[in-house]
C-alpha cells in the first residue's frame, strides 16, 4: 500500500493515505474482527446462528465507507429476533450500532439488516458485522485490569478460556447427539410398526369389503 503511494504523485499519495486511514480506523476503531456483507438495494439481508442458552452475544455493525458519498446519505436499520420471535434489538436509520444480549433459550437467532431512510441506493451497501459469541465476547481488558495481569499471563488465560469453551461445546454436542439418536431409534421402530400395521389395515379393509359385498349380494338374492 505504502510503496504504491510512494511511486506516484500527490493524488496517489492521498489515495494511499485515505486507504491507510480507513484501514487503521478498521483496525484501531475496535471493529477489528468481522466480515463484510452486502445489503441489496431492496430487501433485507439476514444472518443467523444457532446458539445454545446462556451464551453472551456481542455484535457491532457499521457501514463500510466505499466512497464518502455513501457515508453521508445512507443508513441501515437492523432487527435481532430470538428463536421464539421476541424482538431483542431494533434500530432504525443509523450508520453504526451494536447490540449485546445473553441467550435465554437455545435456537436460531436472526439478525436482519436493510437499507433504511429516504435515500434509496441504486446499488447495494456494504456493511461490516463483528459478531462474537461465548468466550470471544469476553472483555479481556477488564479482566486484565481487575486481576492486574498482562502479557504472557493474559494470553495464557485467554487460551484457558478457549479450552473451557471447547469442553463445554463437546458436552453440548454429545447431548445433542444423544437426543438425535433417540429420535432416530424411535423413527426406526415406527417405520417397522407402521409397515406391519399397513399390512394389517390392508387385510382388514379387504375383509370388510368382502363381507359387505357378500351381504349386499345376499340381500339382492344374487347368491
Amino acid at each position: 500500500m505504502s510503496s504504491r503511494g510512494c511511486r506516484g504523485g500527490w493524488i496517489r499519495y492521498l489515495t494511499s493515505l485515505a486507504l491507510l486511514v480507513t484501514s487503521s480506523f478498521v483496525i484501531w476503531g475496535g471493529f477489528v474482527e468481522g466480515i463484510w456483507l452486502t445489503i441489496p438495494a431492496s430487501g433485507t439481508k439476514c444472518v443467523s446462528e444457532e446458539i445454545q442458552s446462556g451464551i453472551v452475544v456481542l455484535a457491532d455493525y457499521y457501514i463500510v465507507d466505499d466512497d464518502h458519498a455513501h457515508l453521508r446519505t445512507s443508513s441501515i436499520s437492523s432487527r435481532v429476533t430470538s428463536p421464539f420471535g421476541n424482538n431483542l434489538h431494533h434500530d432504525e436509520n443509523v450508520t453504526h450500532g451494536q447490540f449485546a444480549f445473553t441467550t435465554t433459550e437455545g435456537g436460531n437467532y436472526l439478525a436482519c439488516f436493510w437499507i433504511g431512510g429516504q435515500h434509496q441506493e441504486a446499488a447495494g451497501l456494504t456493511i461490516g458485522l463483528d459478531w462474537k459469541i461465548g468466550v470471544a465476547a469476553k472483555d479481556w481488558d477488564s479482566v486484565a485490569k481487575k486481576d492486574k495481569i498482562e502479557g504472557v499471563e493474559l494470553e495464557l488465560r485467554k487460551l484457558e478460556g478457549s479450552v473451557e469453551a471447547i469442553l463445554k461445546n463437546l458436552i453440548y454436542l454429545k447431548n445433542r447427539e444423544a437426543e438425535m439418536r433417540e429420535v432416530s431409534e424411535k423413527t426406526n421402530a415406527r417405520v417397522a410398526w407402521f409397515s406391519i400395521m399397513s399390512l394389517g389395515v390392508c387385510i382388514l379393509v379387504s375383509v370388510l369389503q368382502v363381507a359387505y359385498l357378500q351381504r349386499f349380494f345376499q340381500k339382492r338374492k344374487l347368491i
Partner: protein
Amino acid sequence: MWIDRRCLDVALVVSLVLTSSSFITRTSSLSVTVNEVECVYEYVLYEADTVSGNYVVVDHDIFWGSDHPGIDFTVTSPSGNNVHTKKGTSGDKFEFKAPRSGMYKFCFHNPYSTPETVSFYIHVGHIPNEHDLAKDEHLDPINVKIAELREALESVTAEQKYLKARDARHRHTNESTRKRVIYYTLAEYLLLACASGLQVVYIRRLFSKSFGYNRV
C-alpha cells in the same frame, strides 16, 4: 524529495499499526441464506496467513434431498484470482495460505432456485515469524509458541463448529424423516380405505336396478 519523506512516515505508521495488531485473530461464524450468490468478505492482515474454515448447507426441506447438487464455493483474492474452488457439495472444510494481504471474497453460488441456508466459519490465523520478531521488540519467542497453541485450539474449535453444523443438518433430516413416516403412513391408510370404499361403491352401482344386473 518531500513526497518521499511523507511516504516514509506512511510506511512507519503502517508498520506500527500492523505489528501492534499481531495478536489479533479473526473468526467469523454465521449462517446466511443463499438465493443465488451470497458473498462474504473477510480481511486478511498479513501475507502467508492461514485462512481456514468450513461451511455446511443446512437442509432446507427439499423433497428429494439426495438429488440436490449442492452449492459451489469460491474464494477470490483481492487481486481477483481464484484461490479456492469447490463445486457441488453440501459442505466442506477448506484451508489455504493467503498469497497476499487484503480483502478476500468468499462466495456461495446456488445453481437452483430453492434458497439454501449455509452455515459457515472462517478463521484467519497468524503466527508471528522471525521477520515480525525482528521488527517488534515486544515479541518474545514465547509469543510464537503461544500463537501456535492458539492456532491449534482454534482448529479444534473450528472442527467443533463443523460438527455442530453437520449435526444441525442431520437433525433436520431426522425431523423430516420422522414427520414423513407419520404423515405419509396415515395418508396411506386413508387412501387405502378410500380406494376400497370406492371399489364397493362402484360394484354397488354395477348391480343397481338402473343398470340392469343381467347386463353384468
